[in-house]
C-alpha cells in the first residue's frame, strides 16, 4: 500500500530516551491493515521471543490507530493498544512469564490525531527512570517530565495536561494511579472516560513510567482514488443520517440499552455471575439514567451514533460529573454487585475511571470478594474491615480506593480474581470468573455457551466479550479492530459500503471480500501462534467451574447448566473449523502456510 497510510512508526525507547521514525514495510499493511492486526505484526517483531516478562523493558507497548482512522468515515476512530499481557497465564507454565498477547480498543480522538501527526503506530519500549510523557507535534517529538503528574487521577490529569500544553487541539491518552502502582488491570484512557480498559495495557504503560502521550498533527495521508473516496464518504454519511431505529437506539441509551435487555433474557452478570437477571434492573437502566443522570450525548470522531453520555449524579455522593453508565460499567459495578442505586453506581464508575482501572475486571474482583465474605471464606481482617455486601455502595467505594492505591487488601485484590482464589483457596476458584486469568465481561454464560461462552474461552487475550463465538465472527471482530471501525457501527458498513471498498478507494488497492476476510483470519492466527509459543493450549480454553455447577435461581435461564460433554463437542467443532490440532492446539502447517504466517518461530 502506498496511499492512505503514513508508512511510518514512531519508535520510543524510554531507557535510552531515544526517539526515531521507522518505515513500516508495505506488506505489513497489506497483510494486517492497521490497529490490532498491524499491532500484532509489530509486537511479534519487537518481542525478543517467548516468555518475555510483560513488565520488563523489552515488552513493547503499541498505540495503533485503525487503518481508516483519520478519514472521517463515521465511527472510524478506533485505536488499539497492543502489548504482551500482564494478566494471563497458562495452566502449565513453560516459563515464569508466559502470557497471551493483549489488545484493547478505544474510541475517541487519539487515533485520528496520531494519523494526522504522520504515524501509523507508536511503539514504546524500555523503561524510564522517572515519570515522563511523550509529546508529539507533527515531526517534533520529545519526552517530557511527568513527575508532577504522577499519582494524579485521570480526570485531574486530563485538565492539567491541557493547561500545560496550552492548546486544546492536542489529543491525549494516559494512565491513572492504579496502573502507576501496579494494578494488573490498569486501563489507558482518553477524554477522561474513553478507556482501552481490558488486558492490562495501562499496567504495562505504568511499568514503563509513561504517564501519557500528547499528540497534535496537521497532516493527512494522501488518498489513492480521490473521486471514489469522496463518493463513498458522502454515501456513508447519508446512510448514517437516514432515520433508523438502530441509530436512534444508540443515541437514546448507548450500550446501556442492553442493561434491561440482558437482564430480561437472563444473560447479565448478576451477583458474581450466580444469576442472569437483576431484580433492581429498572433502577439502573437507560431510562433511569436518561431521566436522572445523563446530561449530554457524546460522539467519537466523525461518528453519528453518539452512544456515549455525560452524566451528573446528585444525591448522597455529591455532584459527580462523569461519562456513563454503559452496559459493561453499569452491569459490572451495578447488577453484578446487586447495586441499584443509580447515583452511587455513577460515582463508583467515576472513581474507577479516575484510578484508571478496568471496570470489568474490577467488578469481578469486588463480586468475588463479596461472595467470599458472604460464604465466610475470608474474615473482615482480610478485607481491612471493609464490609463488602451485595447492594452496598460505600464499601465498594472503599475497596476501589484500596485497589487503586494498592494498600492493604488492595495489594492482592489488584492482581485479579485468579490470584485471589489461589490465595483464599477453599474451592473459591469455582466462582473466580476468568479465562486464562482474564476476567469475564458483563454477559453471563449459562444458556449462551455456544455464543458468548465460546467467545470467552477462545479469545486470544483471555476472556473477551467482543471476540465472537465462531471463527468467522471472530475474524470479523479482528478486522474491525484493525480497520478502526466501531463494532456498534458495523451494520452500516456492508454491501456497497463494505470496508474493503473503503480501503480500496483510500489505498488504491484491489482487495476482494475474500482477501479481506483472510486478513482477519491471519490476524487471529498470528495471535494464536504467539499464544501457543508461550505454552497455551486447548486446556486453557475453558470456562469457569461456576457455569457447569451453579444454575441461576431466577429468570429465563433458571436451572440451565452447561454440559461439559456438550461444550467439549462445540470446542471440537471450533478447532476443526479453525484448522487447529484438537489436542495440541497448534495451528496446522497447512493453515499457517495458507495465511502466510510461516515467519513465526515456534
Amino acid at each position: 500500500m502506498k496511499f492512505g497510510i503514513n508508512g511510518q512508526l514512531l519508535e520510543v525507547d524510554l531507557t535510552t530516551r531515544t526517539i526515531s521514525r521507522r518505515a513500516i514495510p508495505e506488506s505489513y499493511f497489506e497483510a494486517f491493515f492497521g490497529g490490532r492486526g498491524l499491532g500484532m505484526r509489530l509486537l511479534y517483531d519487537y518481542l525478543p521471543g517467548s516468555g518475555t516478562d510483560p513488565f520488563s523493558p523489552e515488552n513493547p507497548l503499541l498505540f495503533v490507530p485503525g487503518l481508516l482512522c483519520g478519514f472521517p468515515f463515521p465511527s472510524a476512530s478506533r485505536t488499539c493498544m497492543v502489548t504482551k499481557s500482564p494478566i494471563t497465564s497458562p495452566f502449565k507454565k513453560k516459563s515464569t512469564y508466559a502470557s497471551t498477547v493483549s489488545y484493547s480498543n478505544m474510541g475517541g480522538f487519539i487515533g485520528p490525531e496520531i494519523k494526522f501527526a504522520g504515524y501509523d503506530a507508536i511503539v514504546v519500549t524500555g523503561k524510564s527512570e522517572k515519570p515522563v510523557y511523550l509529546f508529539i507535534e507533527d515531526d517534533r517529538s520529545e519526552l517530557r517530565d511527568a513527575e508532577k503528574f504522577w499519582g494524579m487521577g485521570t480526570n485531574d490529569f486530563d485538565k492539567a495536561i491541557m493547561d500545560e500544553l496550552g492548546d486544546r487541539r492536542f489529543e491525549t491518552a494516559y494512565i491513572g494511579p492504579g496502573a502507576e502502582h501496579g494494578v494488573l488491570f490498569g486501563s489507558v484512557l482518553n477524554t477522561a472516560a474513553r478507556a482501552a480498559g481490558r488486558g492490562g495495557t495501562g499496567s504495562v504503560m505504568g511499568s514503563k513510567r509513561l504517564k501519557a502521550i500528547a499528540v497534535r498533527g496537521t497532516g493527512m495521508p494522501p488518498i489513492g482514488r480521490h473521486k471514489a473516496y469522496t463518493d463513498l464518504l458522502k454515501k456513508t454519511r447519508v446512510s448514517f443520517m437516514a432515520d433508523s431505529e438502530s441509530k436512534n437506539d444508540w443515541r437514546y441509551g448507548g450500550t446501556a440499552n442492553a442493561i434491561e435487555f440482558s437482564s430480561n433474557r437472563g444473560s447479565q452478570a448478576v451477583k458474581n455471575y450466580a444469576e442472569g437477571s437483576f431484580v433492581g434492573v429498572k433502577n439502573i437502566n437507560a431510562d433511569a439514567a436518561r431521566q436522572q443522570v445523563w446530561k449530554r450525548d457524546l460522539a467519537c470522531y466523525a461518528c453519528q451514533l453518539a452512544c456515549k453520555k455525560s452524566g451528573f449524579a446528585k444525591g448522597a455522593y455529591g455532584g459527580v460529573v462523569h461519562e456513563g453508565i454503559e452496559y459493561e460499567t453499569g452491569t459490572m459495578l451495578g447488577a453484578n454487585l446487586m447495586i441499584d442505586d443509580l447515583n452511587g453506581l455513577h460515582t463508583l464508575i467515576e472513581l474507577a475511571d479516575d484510578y484508571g482501572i478496568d471496570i470489568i475486571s474490577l467488578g469481578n474482583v469486588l463480586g468475588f470478594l463479596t461472595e467470599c465474605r458472604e460464604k465466610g471464606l475470608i474474615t473482615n481482617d482480610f478485607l481491612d474491615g471493609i464490609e463488602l455486601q451485595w447492594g452496598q455502595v460505600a464499601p465498594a467505594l472503599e475497596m476501589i480506593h484500596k485497589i487503586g492505591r494498592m494498600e492493604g487488601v488492595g495489594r492482592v485484590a489488584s492482581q485479579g480474581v485468579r490470584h485471589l482464589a489461589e490465595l483464599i483457596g477453599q474451592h473459591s476458584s469455582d466462582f473466580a470468573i476468568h479465562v486464562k486469568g482474564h476476567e469475564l465481561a458483563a454477559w453471563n454464560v449459562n444458556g449462551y455457551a455456544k455464543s458468548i461462552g465460546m467467545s470467552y474461552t477462545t479469545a486470544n487475550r483471555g476472556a473477551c466479550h467482543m471476540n465472537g463465538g465462531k471463527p468467522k465472527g471472530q475474524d470479523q471482530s479482528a478486522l474491525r479492530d484493525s480497520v478502526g471501525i466501531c463494532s456498534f457501527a458495523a451494520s452500516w458498513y456492508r454491501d456497497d459500503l463494505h470496508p474493503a471498498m473503503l480501503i480500496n478507494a483510500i489505498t488504491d488497492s484491489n482487495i476482494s471480500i475474500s482477501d479481506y476476510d483472510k486478513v482477519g483470519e491471519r490476524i487471529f492466527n498470528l495471535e494464536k501462534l504467539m499464544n501457543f509459543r508461550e505454552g497455551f493450549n486447548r486446556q486453557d480454553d475453558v470456562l469457569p467451574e461456576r457455569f457447569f455447577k451453579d444454575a441461576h435461581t431466577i429468570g429465563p435461564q433458571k436451572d440451565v447448566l452447561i454440559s461439559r460433554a456438550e461444550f467439549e463437542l462445540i470446542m471440537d467443532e471450533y478447532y476443526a473449523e479453525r484448522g487447529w490440532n484438537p489436542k495440541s492446539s497448534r495451528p496446522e502447517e497447512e493453515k499457517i502456510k495458507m495465511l502466510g504466517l510461516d515467519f513465526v518461530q515456534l
Partner: protein
Amino acid sequence: MKVSRKDFIKGMLLGSAGVAVTSQLGFMTFSISGTNSIKAIVIDYSKCTGCRTCEAVCSASNHPVSVAGEALPGAGNPDFSNIKVWHFNPPLDIPVTCFLCEDAPCIAACPVKPDTVTGRKALYRDDVFQTIQNDLNRCIGCQSCADACREERGGVIFPDDLGQPQRMCTLCQGNPQCVKFCPYEALSFLEITPDMPLRMMTPEKINQLLAEAYYQ
C-alpha cells in the same frame, strides 16, 4: 473571493440595505442599516456531541483538490477547517466558527487604512454574504485581527506563516456544508438577531456558561 453574478443578485435580495451601506462604510455597516440581515452559522450547543463531522466537511468544501482536471472536495483534514470543535472537561463540546459579529472587532483592529474608493481595510466584509475577507495584497500580516478575535470573540482566525488571517467562515457561498452534514442538527444557517444566546464570546466563556447549566 470571486462572486458570480447570480450570487451577487442573491446577496442583494438577502440584504440590499446592508450591502448598499457596506461598500461605502466598510465595517460600520449593520447598525446603520437598521434591518439586520446577516445570516451566519448558528450553533445549538445542546445538540452538539463533539463528533467534528463539521470540521471534516468544512475542510473538504473549502479546500478542494484538483484530480485529473476535476475539482473535488478535499480529504477533510480538520486542520484546514473554518469551524473548530473545542472539547472541554467536564464533557462539553463547543463548536465555534466566525460569528460574523455585527461590530467585527477583527476589522476594527485592522490597522490598514480604508481604501478611498471602496472604504475597505485589508480585512473587510464581503458584499454578498457579509463574511470576513482578507485582501492578500494589502494585508501586512500583523495579526491584530486574530488577536482581537481571540481576546474578544470566538478566536476563529488562525494566521498562516506569513501572518495572513485564515479560517474565517465562507458560508460555502450560501450553502454551508457543515449545516448540511451535521448529523445532530446542531448547526443552522440563520439570520442573526441580538437575542441569540452564546454568540460573540470566547469558547472558554461559552464553556463556562454551559458548564454552569449542565453540571451544577
